[in-house]
């Protein structure tokens, strides 16, 4: 039985990510890559349009990751969390690079203590 708070893999909640790049810059092994662009968003009662970051790509290379959890600890928006998903294996080194889809699929829904 694997506990729900187990450090099996790192998961991403893309809707919470603001593309602030803190995880990418603090990662000691340089295993996170993030691509984003800015968009102007007009709101009816605002004088000027707001500039927001739109997340285009987010990749973690688990062939480089050492599971230190610094990215999870530092994310100001709780967009990264530990997940008990653990069956990470691949037949090529590139197969260990997971994108937004795979990372968000691992998001620990059953774990009430993370994410929020």
């Amino acid at each position, binding site marked *: 039985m694997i506990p729900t708070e187990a450090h099996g893999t790192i998961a991403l909640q893309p809707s919470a990510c603001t593309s602030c790049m803190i995880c990418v810059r603090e990662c000691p092994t340089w295993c996170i890559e993030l691509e*984003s*662009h800015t968009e102007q968003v007009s709101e009816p009662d605002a004088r000027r349009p707001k500039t927001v*970051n739109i997340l285009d790509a987010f990749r973690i290379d688990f062939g480089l990751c050492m599971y230190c959890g610094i990215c999870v600890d530092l994310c100001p928006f709780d967009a990264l969390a530990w997940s008990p998903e653990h069956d990470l294996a691949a037949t090529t080194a590139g197969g260990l690079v997971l994108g937004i889809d795979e990372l968000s699929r691992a998001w620990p829904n059953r774990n009430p203590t993370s994410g929020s």
Partner: protein
Amino acid sequence: MTPPLDLAVEPGDWLRSVVALRDEGCEVFDFLTAVDRGQVIEVVVRVMNPATKAATMVWTTVPADAAELASLSEHYLGATWCERETAEMFGVRFMGLADQRPLLLRATLGRPPMLKESALVARAVREWPGAAQATDDGRQGGNPSRRRQLPPGVPDDFLRPDRSSLDQSAGTT
């Protein structure tokens, strides 16, 4: 008598201090390694008394540009391996160490890899992912200039084209 937990000595007193501890009963050699503090390199050895389980860490500092220290290998059998490792990883020369062969690295590798000024090839050949910025979507004038970012824990001149440590890595031993 209980030996101190930590003992800082001058490099000239290194051999005498550690041998004195051995004579007091600290006969087990645990490990010897070094820490790069920039201008100086700290060398530390941990020895233990097997009867009382009391252990002492002996520290000394040697200048980084002339890192020389007396070898403990004649007094502790296990010291040779650690001194060979510290020699090739931190560039500390152990005077009187009979076996000066490189332990793990090729002799032609260049700068000792554990010195902080030695750039990892894996870092130099790849662009830092943290340098990326959000691209603008239909705005005039491009990105506003932001302060230059550096990866955490690297020297200030990291990744500048005139870095000398990379050029030197092909030459000296």
